[in-house]
């Protein structure tokens, strides 16, 4: 059962993301929205982001997840500066993003023909991020399995993992049917996005990324601090969801 609010939200999303899905109709009114003599506004019609909840992987298989968790923890290693990518939830972030519109290339121009172009023309390949992760992780697992006598990536030492990641980064290792360099760049970008995005999306847990650099997050009002030059802003970061210590202890 869909309440009217959800339905409004969905229709809005649908239009925004997939432009318009055309239905055959013989209606005599314009389908669109005709607005006259009002500022249309409905209570509760806002469209806040859905909070990522802990739970089973939404996209990754358990093997894939083990590899990604190992990778994000090398890209952002845990150390004296704070938690690493794994504890900060970067793998969870990527998992939920791949299970959502980003993973499906939703809203992008995906019509053929696909032709190789110059780098200034951007990505020209039908594969979506979800497909690229699936293929990339499979090719990586195969490559590691062959070269490391059957071991999985997450079973290697940190130094061995770093060596493989460096080789992917500079393209010196080849993956079957996968552009290793581009795959690495995508994983790195998504990992860092997860580390610094609002915690509502599953990464940046306990605002670890924001604490690392000193970004106060979603505070939205610094009027008193603009002219306090050379002073560190004193308040801790806050997320769209608020802060853990704002929640009732009951």
């Amino acid at each position, binding site marked *: 059962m869909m309440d009217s609010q959800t339905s409004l939200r969905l229709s809005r999303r649908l239009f*925004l993301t*997939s*432009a*318009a899905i055309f*239905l*055959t*109709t013989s*209606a005599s009114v*314009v*389908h*669109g*929205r*005709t*607005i*006259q*003599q*009002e500022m*249309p*506004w409905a209570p509760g*019609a806002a*469209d*806040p*982001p859905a909070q990522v909840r802990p739970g089973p992987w939404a996209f990754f298989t358990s093997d894939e997840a083990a590899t990604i968790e190992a990778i994000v923890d*090398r*890209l*952002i290693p845990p*150390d004296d*500066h704070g938690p690493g990518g794994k504890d900060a939830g970067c793998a969870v972030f990527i998992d939920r993003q791949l299970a959502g519109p*980003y993973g499906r290339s939703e*809203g*992008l*121009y995906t019509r053929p023909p696909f*032709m190789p*172009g*110059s*780098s*200034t*023309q*951007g*990505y020209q390949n039908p594969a979506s991020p979800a497909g690229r992760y699936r293929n990339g992780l499979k090719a990586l697992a195969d490559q590691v399995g062959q070269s490391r006598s059957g071991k999985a990536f997450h079973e290697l030492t940190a130094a061995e993992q770093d060596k493989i990641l460096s080789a992917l980064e500079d393209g010196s290792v080849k993956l079957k049917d996968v552009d290793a360099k581009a795959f690495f760049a995508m994983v790195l970008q998504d990992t860092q996005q997860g580390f*610094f*995005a609002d915690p509502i999306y599953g990464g940046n847990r306990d605002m670890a990324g924001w604490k*690392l*650099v*000193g*970004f*106060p*997050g979603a*505070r*939205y*009002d*610094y009027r008193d*601090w*603009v*002219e306090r030059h*050379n*002073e*560190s*802003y004193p308040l801790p970061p806050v997320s*769209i969801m608020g802060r853990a210590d704002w929640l009732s202890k009951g």
Partner: protein
Amino acid sequence: MARKLPSKNVVVIGLGWTGSILSYHLAKAGLDVVAIERGPWRDTATDFPPAYAQDELRYAIRLDLFLRPAQETLTFRNRADQTALPIRNFAGFLPGNGVGGAGIHWNGQTWRFLSTDFRLRSHLTERYGASMLPGDMTIQDWPVSYDELEPYYDRFEKLCGTSGKAGNLKGVKQDGGNPFEGWRSSEYPTPPLKQGLGATLFAEAARKLGHSPFPQPASNLSEAYTNPLGIRMGQCSYCGFCERFGCGNYSKASPQTCVLPALMRLPNFTAQTESEVLRINLDSTGKRATGVTYVDTSGEEWEQPADIVLLCAFALFNVQLMLISGIGKPYDPDSGQGVLGRNYAYQTTSSVSVILKDKVLNPFIATGAHGMMIDDYNGDNFDHSNLGFVGGGYMGAGQTNGRPIQTRPVPKGTPKWGAAWKKATAETYQHAYSLSTHGSSYSYRDCWLDLDPTYKDRLGRPLMRMTFDFHDNELKMSAYLTERLAEIAKAMNPTEMQAHPRKGPYDSTIYQTTHNTGGTVMGDDPQTSVLNRYCQSWDVHNLFIPGGASVFPQNHGYNPTNTVGALAFWTADAITQLYLKNPGPLV
């Protein structure tokens, strides 16, 4: 077969800045106006309330408020000998979508062009001789002068409540303002924004080197303000979420905060959203527009007849709709003949990043348009005699944010990941600042827009094709400006600095600006322009393109929005004061 709707006096295509300004003025003048917008209705409380407006992933990375390429995109190539390929995900520039258009997601930087910019070719030829200009440079004079446009700049700034400090009031120089700006009939509506440490240090260094820094004019308001339409705006909170974001504080000027509350009250105005105009219709003579045909969300087509058609889409899509509608002669770069799609231009930006180890800069305390700038190297404010290029830009310290997905500077040579990256990121964030130049992009014979022969949009129409690359003149200009900026940066005594002059080729995957200009240029000669000085089509007298940046003959060293807004008011006056009295060609 499209079904016919009752006729209106005016149909407006696109409800952004120009569409809302024109709609308001023409509806106020008593005309029955309908505005057709392909995106959704948007308002602050629903689309970007302060509860979650500050979401970098959603708005800046996933581009929530922008046009989806699945809905419309274009193809791109650097040179005519390449095959243009579709921009599958917007990156280099970001067209808006929905009511408010680019007026929602802009930064608020509100500049006027220089008086010499409006007679660019004449001025440069008079001062330096025609041989100074490259043979394939197709810059031309504007058909309006700065003096003519000044009252309209004034009106747009008052609509927005722009914060700043005048440098030239009716010809009298003012301390603390931009000494190079054209005369202003009045002071800015609100005082300048407060400045953070980075901008303050830049200004001190610039002054030391003999330049004249001034606060950047900002339509992110320093104080609460009521505009001439009676709409109240709030004070900017320096939250650092302007560009790519809607403002949750009602303090950044936009159609939402400056026009729509007054416009929507008018009984003779209708907004028709989520409806996309397919084409402008002409009568059998081809000299008169009869209205538009649009498609609604169910896929059904509707014909909206109207006496006047106003094309108010984003610059690039103004050109596409004109090409698809077959109005005006498409430009042919081989012969140089034709006008539609001619003189596409952009912006030539660059930056200098500094690290000031002993300073705490709080980069997240920011607005889209605060900062201190100098205009000493813009337009022809400096002698180009021995420089080997023309053009210039403003430059200075106006870092717009410290949002950490995108703004995460590290010292040169830092690895891209791992422990060393993490350490450098942690140690640099609070102490780094980015200075920038905002340079001109003059027009050239081989930079143009036309229809793509291969790729189609979801409605089966050809995508528009962009052929564009930076030319030597612009790259030399950028190198020169970046060197001057680096001199000032050096005087800030940085621990480290890196200069990044613009290099070719133009890369559509790296965000630079969304200042896409030209293609339906305004001018004095129908052989080299699509529109006359009143933004009226030379071919179809009841069709106007009222000031979208597609009317710019070339792009100058400033952000376009103030000139776009001024031309919207200029065209509104031309229609109400001249055209309605005597419908026909105004020139």
